[in-house]
């Protein structure tokens, strides 16, 4: 333990009041040289300036980061170049989906074609049966032969219906004309438009997809020509393309007492199917258009004339010459044969007068 005397000396030493502290204070103290002072101050000043420059550069860089400069003319590309795959992806998806739809559609349309015709046939059958009391029997075409057709086309069909006679839809494998007697009363609900137009005796056209059904009711009957896969396929294979457009009037028709269902599968495409019209029936009675076939007129008489054999014309010329030469008996015999052979032949007025003179000479 330090005594109070020593503690007093220590306090005096700390406060610089004793002799020792005065001697220590009298010692010459080292001091830095002026060169060292300038060196240190210059070094620190340079460091401060460098730091300030760095701060300014950081501030400029931050400002640049907030609003990066974009070269004019490249702004859109610089924004979109990272999204180049979007239009490519969209295009690829669209292409794939379209291809898939096309393939799927081609696969689905071919088997569905006969089915659509059958459904449409039901509707028409119902309309005809309910409103006009016409029993209709429709035999849907066999779908097995349908793929032979063009896959996306549904052919126009024509069906001749009679309002008083049972009408049968026929599907022929070798001929477009068929007649069966299998009346089947239809009780299905009618299609209103079809029924109304059928009642008015107008031509009804029902178009579903590419199917065109024309119902021509001129009090004699209706013509309905449904397209069947089998008949169309076979007919298209047998007939040339131009002959498929033949109207019903161009078909050689024989007088038939039986109810006639004239069915022609018009194997046409596009506008050809729309040009396909019903067979013109003029002057027909309400019931017996089959027996009274003479009232059937062709729409195009030139075309009808082409159907008369050239031998008939020569035959008529021979008869005319016989009349002119006064060979009345021979001419009368030949005219009788001609009438039997061509009962529906329409004579020219001059020839008609000569025939009348010939018949009067007989009497």
């Amino acid at each position: 333990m330090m005594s109070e005397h020593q503690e007093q000396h220590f306090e005096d030493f700390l406060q610089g009041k004793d002799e020792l502290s005065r001697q220590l204070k009298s010692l010459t103290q080292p001091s830095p040289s002026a060169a060292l002072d300038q060196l240190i101050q210059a070094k620190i000043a340079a460091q401060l300036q460098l730091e300030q420059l760095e701060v300014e550069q950081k501030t400029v860089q931050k400002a640049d980061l907030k609003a990066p400069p974009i070269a004019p003319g490249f702004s859109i590309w610089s924004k979109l170049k990272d999204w180049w795959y979007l239009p490519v992806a969209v295009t690829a998806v669209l292409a794939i989906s379209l291809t898939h739809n096309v393939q799927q559609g081609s696969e689905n349309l071919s088997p569905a074609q006969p089915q659509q015709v059958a459904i449409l046939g039901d509707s028409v059958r119902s309309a005809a049966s309910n409103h006009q009391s016409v029993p209709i029997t429709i035999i849907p075409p066999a779908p097995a032969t349908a793929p032979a057709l063009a896959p996306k086309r549904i052919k126009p069909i024509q069906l001749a219906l009679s309002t008083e006679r049972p009408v049968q839809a026929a599907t022929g494998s070798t001929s477009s004309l068929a007649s069966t007697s299998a009346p089947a009363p239809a009780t299905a609900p009618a299609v209103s438009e079809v029924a109304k137009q059928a009642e008015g005796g107008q031509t009804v056209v029902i178009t579903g997809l590419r199917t065109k059904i024309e119902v021509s009711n001129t009090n004699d009957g209706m013509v309905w020509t449904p397209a069947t896969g089998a008949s169309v396929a076979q007919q298209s294979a047998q007939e040339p393309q131009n002959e498929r457009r033949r109207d019903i009037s161009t078909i050689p028709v024989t007088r038939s007492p039986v109810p006639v269902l004239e069915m022609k599968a018009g194997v046409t495409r596009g506008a050809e199917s729309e040009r396909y019209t019903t067979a013109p029936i003029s002057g027909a009675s309400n019931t017996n258009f089959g027996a009274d076939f003479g009232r059937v007129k062709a729409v195009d008489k030139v075309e009808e004339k082409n159907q008369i054999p050239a031998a008939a014309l020569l035959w008529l010329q021979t008869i005319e010459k016989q009349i002119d030469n006064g060979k009345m008996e021979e001419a009368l015999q030949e005219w009788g044969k001609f009438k039997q052979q061509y009962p529906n032949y329409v004579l020219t007025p001059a020839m008609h007068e000569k025939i009348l003179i010939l018949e009067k000479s007989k009497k």
Partner: protein
Amino acid sequence: MLRYCAGDLLAFQELYRRHSAALYRFIAWRSPRVEWVDEIMQDSWTALHFARDRYKVEARFRSYLYQIARHRLLDLIAQHQLVLASDLGCDADGVAIFEHMADLADGAQELLTPEQSVQRRQENGDLHAAIAALPSVQKEALVLQQFNHLSVEEIAQVSEVSVETVKSRLRYAMQKLRQHFAKNLATPEELA
């Protein structure tokens, strides 16, 4: 110091003007080699510059600056693995430092008579030798207290010891110096 932390060069220059001499004195008294003083001086101010962001207002700037210089000195000593002469009591470098300081003191006493100058040079030489003979921690406390005018608390903060430790170091340093002066001041008759 806060202005200097913000980058004010004038604030730094003012700080340097106030504390550079005292810091250099501390380093000169504390450094075992003369050639290290300038190096430690530059390193201390440079270290202060880069460490100014860590400065806390609670601490006095002087204590903070001396701590930096002291750490730099200790690092340098550790790098050279020197055994301080003051710790052994007979180091040539330490003697050289105080001889250099004594030479500097001689230059400041030009107004004295030649006899007085010789007597003063002898006294200063003896005093430098006595200080150099102190243990380093006692010498550090003595220099900071007597030459840099730091309080006991500040010395404790710089030296990173307690206040009582600093006082103890100062008492021992005082007693050794007194004993040295007692021998020198005693006349031959008193010694006999």
